[in-house]
């Protein structure tokens, strides 16, 4: 390409050519595809990098907003009223009840784990349950097991984020899950290092036809949960009437486990519950 062509392109793109020169240059563009491609390329680069372009202003704004959220916990989904927001509002109300139920369950553990010395308490659940914010921050603080039982206690320590979703249905409208087995908080017994895991129930309402639902089992390991490393993961296959059954021998250690149904497309949790494994 000729030497002053660069200047000509720069002048053309920066709109500094007079009308006659501009017209002549546009004639060339129409006749020379290679030149037209080069100008389009430079225009693209210039547009992508112009700091005051609407896109880059939007990007700058998004970067600023994004800095506010440095961890998943900084985003509270219950603040939103996204599609399905009714369900989320329901979560807020239910969270208090469910969290309290979860705490009560935690307090009941000594009955199942003789190595722990927590006094059994009746499960607490009533419509007048105070909201989650008013609950004691963590039941296991005041009922902390002694150091000798710590390793076993650790395996039963709840994941707070999941606890608040236990038993919740995130879809209030089109369909919901009825899980018959395992019952919420059920205990499974290890036999030769394995449990006979059986998940049965039914999708009630308008059964989702095109939706892929992933069933995941997480241990109570916070890090594995955050990094989405379930101990077991499988697609949920349901019959036309919505019934589902999943049976599997799972090699699990004693501890607390969470059952999570997730919409594979949106990543949305559709159902959360928990069960225990003991020797």
């Amino acid at each position, binding site marked *: 390409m000729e030497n002053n062509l*660069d*200047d000509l392109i*720069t002048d053309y793109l*920066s709109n500094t050519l007079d009308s006659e020169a501009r017209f002549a240059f546009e004639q060339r563009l129409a006749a020379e595809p290679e030149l037209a491609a080069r100008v389009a*390329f*430079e225009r*693209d*680069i*210039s*547009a*992508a*990098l*112009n*700091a*005051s372009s*609407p*896109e880059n*202003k*939007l*990007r700058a*704004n*998004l*970067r600023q*907003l*994004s800095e*506010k*959220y440095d*961890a*998943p916990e900084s*985003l*509270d*989904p219950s*603040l*939103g*009223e*996204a*599609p*399905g927001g009714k369900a989320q509002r329901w979560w807020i109300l239910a969270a208090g009840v469910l969290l309290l139920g979860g705490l009560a369950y935690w307090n009941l553990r000594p009955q199942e784990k003789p190595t722990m010395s927590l006094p059994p308490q009746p499960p607490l659940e009533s419509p007048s349950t105070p909201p989650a914010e008013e609950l004691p921050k963590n039941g296991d603080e005041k009922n902390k097991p002694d150091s000798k039982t710590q390793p076993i206690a650790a395996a039963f320590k709840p994941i707070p984020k999941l606890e608040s979703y236990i038993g919740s249905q995130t879809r209030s409208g089109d369909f919901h899950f009825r899980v018959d087995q395992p019952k919420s908080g059920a205990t499974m017994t290890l036999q030769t290092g394995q449990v006979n895991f059986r998940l049965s129930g039914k999708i009630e309402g308008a059964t989702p036809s*095109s*939706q*892929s639902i*992933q069933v995941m089992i997480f241990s109570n390991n916070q890090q594995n949960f955050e*990094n*989405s490393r379930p101990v077991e993961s499988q697609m949920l296959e349901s019959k036309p009437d919505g019934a589902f059954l999943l049976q599997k021998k799972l090699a699990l250690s004693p501890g607390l486990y969470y059952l999570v149904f*997730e919409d*594979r*497309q*949106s*990543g*949305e*949790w559709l159902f959360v519950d928990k069960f225990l494994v003991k020797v």
Partner: protein
Amino acid sequence: MENKDLTYIRAILNNDSTLLDEIYRRFLPPLFGMLRRNGGRFEDAKDVFQEAIVVVFHHAARPGFQLTAPFQSYLIGIGRFIWLRQLKKNARIEVTSDREDGFDVDADLEHQIFESEKQRLFREKFTLLGKDCQQLLQRFFDREPLNRIANDMGYTDDYVKKKNKVCKGKLMELIQKDTRYGELTSHIYSAKTQAAPNGE
């Protein structure tokens, strides 16, 4: 009353900080959930989220744009497409077909996603230039008058012109040498052809 989904679209088009913040709080969690299932971390989710918003910004600004799905499906569908492309490139995990169970990204939207990816490539290559070149080119791209740039940088107009030419040449070379550029332009061409089969 305007549909909430359209309010979100408008907020993106208008760069409305308050509503964009709401969009972050409401839709980043499900996007992160989807990424987690596909080997992504929270930082990846934030990047993909930003890119998806930018794609919406361009896509929704096109004449005749119609939102044919709920905003959440639309945004997460775009995010999914962007993330799966990244995974394929990095070969971090084996991924299933883009459209197997996701939001149906049509040719028009695909074209926009590739365009945005191309612009991201431009920005990435720009950061590889020396500081001087970056400074100078940035001011050119921001359409500052040449004499002001020369004056501020303590150069003559001629020198600034020459330096601009060299820096721009270097940037174009960096972009064109990257195999992604060829791949993206061919994708863009093909998506454009599919979107407008009559050559419109």
